[in-house]
């Protein structure tokens, strides 16, 4: 091995970021492949994939001087090599040891990256792998050449014979030259797995230790000029041959050059998210420009179509398959089930469904929560399942599909289902009003109320307090919906639907005091004209509007306004008074923070078809800031 490749590379840290990112990807794929491995009949391609990933990490770690990673991945690779060659059967302990090793490499990388204060202890994981790898493979035998002598006197023939026979039992005895006389020598070659010291101590039984010479015999190898480099052709010979070959092929090459070279395969490239976001922004501008042109000069069908196509194509670049989220679930379910003493299988489908990168980040937590719920609360213990005539192992299936502009994700379990009576009892306890004979659907809705939890015991897994209400709020804040269906004894299905992207929203535009404001359509419940007499003042609450059984706080936008838009956010509902409803349309969301500065009450801005800027109202902020409800002017750009 060369002195220190990391040093010779110059600024090796320039490669660190690439290596970290790449290693994370490799480790994620190792994990997902490991979780899918069937211990009985491991898929050869999967094992090869794991091997390659680990091998890649080891290679680069070696170049960058990350010795701990090299050492662990090396043993990891040894075990994998045995597995893929079928020299060792794959069982649960192997999978577990490899998963753990993957985790340790992950933390080691986190440490190297600076996001972990302390280096993880890699010894345990390494020892486990080593043990599994060694259990089946004896160390490779080594070949020794032994010389005993010069002998002061001949060795007793019977003793020598016995010793050689004994050695033949230990290993493989090769060529021997026995000159068993005074001044002579006994020489032989021997392959065995033991250490040189062991061999020495055996021989010392027969001859004086000072007469023993043991040499290692190098394995037969073609001559090498260097351990790390082997040339199959000498440079000089190569150059001579090339000169010859060039002359011969001169004519042919000339002909080749005149033909246009075909382009290579389109392969994938990596682009930073910022570059893509810039592209998205620019296309957003273009969409606006197109709308302005259309307003001034009448519609230009071609331009409009091309603009929309371009917009779609650019948005598609930001799309990431949902497998990025799904891939974490097999492990989550496996570990949860283990911890809870349940048997749960997980099935995923539609992993290829794509959605906006920003959306992926935001739905991960709510989905994780749903999957956790399904295993923790939904699934029964194996005995209970058998007693109910169901298979011992439960199934959680997670599917994703695109329906129009939305992605629909379903988390389904075949567990015990929701218990209507318990939910009703819990609702009564909490003083909720539930009409007699409410439909199941209405009863299930109660589960989404804040602080509502029917889990009999607070479990370590799902905890207390953070429940379905949080899931619903998170999903709603993305402009999505959550629905729940359940059949007692047969299971529960939660259906989450979110828009494809966060960069464009369906919006309602409203007019207040001659200005246009934008409300995300997802937060608008209804709108209607109200008479002044419908508004009531309630002490300490400002004015309120009665909507069926509820009194909603009124947010007055300026002086006038006879139209109430009922908006809903995670903190509740409110009636927003506006002058006019302008319409519904898609708007391209622009961040105020990055273009201007953050303004409380506004979640962004957009540019309207006429080129004017319209502000997007932050519904959550408007609903929750109650104190000054009387005459709070709308935020504006100064």
């Amino acid at each position: 091995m060369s002195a220190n490749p990391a040093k010779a590379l110059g600024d090796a840290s320039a490669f660190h970021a690439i290596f970290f990112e790449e290693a994370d990807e490799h480790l994620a794929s190792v994990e997902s492949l490991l979780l899918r491995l069937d211990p009985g009949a491991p898929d050869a391609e999967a094992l090869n994939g794991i091997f390659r990933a680990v091998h890649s990490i080891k290679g680069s770690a070696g170049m960058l001087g990350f010795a701990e990673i090299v050492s662990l991945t090396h043993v990891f690779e040894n075990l994998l090599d045995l597995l893929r060659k079928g020299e060792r059967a794959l069982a649960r302990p192997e999978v577990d040891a490899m998963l753990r090793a993957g985790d340790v490499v992950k933390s080691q990388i986190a440490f190297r990256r600076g996001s972990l204060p302390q280096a993880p202890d890699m010894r345990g994981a390494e020892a486990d792998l080593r043990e599994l790898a060694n259990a089946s493979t004896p160390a490779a035998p080594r070949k020794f050449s032994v010389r005993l002598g010069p002998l002061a006197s001949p060795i007793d023939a019977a003793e020598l014979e016995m010793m050689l026979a004994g050695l033949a039992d230990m290993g493989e005895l090769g060529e021997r030259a026995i000159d068993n006389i005074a001044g002579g020598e006994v020489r032989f070659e021997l392959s065995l797995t033991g250490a040189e010291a062991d061999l020495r101590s055996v021989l010392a039984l027969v001859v004086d230790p000072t007469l023993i010479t043991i040499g290692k015999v190098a394995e037969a190898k073609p001559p090498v000029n260097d351990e790390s480099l082997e040339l199959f052709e000498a440079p000089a010979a190569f150059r001579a041959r090339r000169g010859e070959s060039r002359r011969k092929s001169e004519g042919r090459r000339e002909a080749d050059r005149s033909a246009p070279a075909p382009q290579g395969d389109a392969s994938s490239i990596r682009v930073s998210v910022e570059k893509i976001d810039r592209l998205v922004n620019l296309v957003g501008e273009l969409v606006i420009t197109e709308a302005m042109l259309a307003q001034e000069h009448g519609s230009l069908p071609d331009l409009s179509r091309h603009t929309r196509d371009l917009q779609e194509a650019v948005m598609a670049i930001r799309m990431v398959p949902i497998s990025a989220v799904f891939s974490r679930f097999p492990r989550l379910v496996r570990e949860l089930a283990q911890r809870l003493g349940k048997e749960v299988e997980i099935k995923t489908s539609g992993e290829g469904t794509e959605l906006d990168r920003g959306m992926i980040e935001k739905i991960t937590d709510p989905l994780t929560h749903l999957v956790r719920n399904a295993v923790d609360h939904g699934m029964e213990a194996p005995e209970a399942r058998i007693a109910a005539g169901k298979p011992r192992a439960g199934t959680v299936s997670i599917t994703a599909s695109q329906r129009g502009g939305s992605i629909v994700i379903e988390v389904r379990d075949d567990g015990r289902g929701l218990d209507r009576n318990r939910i009703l009892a819990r609702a009564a306890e909490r003083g909720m009003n539930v009409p007699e004979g409410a439909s199941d659907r209405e009863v299930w809705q109660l589960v989404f109320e804040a602080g509502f939890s029917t889990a009999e015991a607070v479990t370590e897994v799902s905890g207390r307090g953070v429940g379905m209400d949080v899931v619903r709020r998170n999903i709603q804040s993305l402009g999505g919906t959550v629905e729940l269906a359940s059949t007692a004894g047969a299971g529960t299905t939660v259906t989450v639907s979110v828009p494809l992207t966060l960069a464009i929203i369906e919006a309602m535009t409203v007019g207040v005091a001659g200005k246009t404001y934008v409300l995300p359509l997802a937060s608008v419940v209804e709108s209607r004209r109200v008479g002044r007499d419908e508004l009531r003042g309630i002490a300490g609450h400002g004015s309120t509007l009665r909507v069926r059984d509820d009194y909603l706080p009124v947010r007055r936008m300026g002086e006038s306004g006879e139209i109430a838009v009922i908006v809903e956010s995670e903190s509740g509902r409110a009636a927003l008074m506006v002058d006019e409803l302008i319409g519904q349309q898609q708007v391209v969301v622009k961040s105020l923070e990055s273009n201007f500065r953050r303004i409380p009450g506004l979640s962004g801005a957009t540019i309207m078809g006429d080129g004017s800027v319209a502000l997007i109202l932050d519904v959550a902020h408007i609903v929750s800031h109650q104190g000054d409800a009387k005459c709070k002017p709308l935020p504006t750009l100064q």
Partner: protein
Amino acid sequence: MSKSILVVDDTRSMRKMVATVLQAAGYSVEEAGDGAEALERAKTRVFDLVVTDHNMPRMDGVTLVRELRGLPEYDAVALIVLSTETGAELKAKGRDAGATGWMAKPFDPQKMLDIVRQFVA
């Protein structure tokens, strides 16, 4: 015009390291992520030298060497395998396929440059 080298490795960080070392020495470098992609590229232009990893998806390095040697244009182009695997059997396969040399990873950049210089005219 600077000499062109095709660097083939499925590990992006490794590929970048090799490419960077060669670029710093003034070579013009193209990269391919596996043997199959490398073969396609090699058919569109003739490189002055190829440095390839062995263990890669789709097509491994030794197979790439064999395929390239089948192309008349690559009859006299040095093909160097750069791999963490250094088993005698595998190396022999590489030699039979037509590899010019076999270098072990982790590699010493200076040594790699020395070799490359000798084989790129």
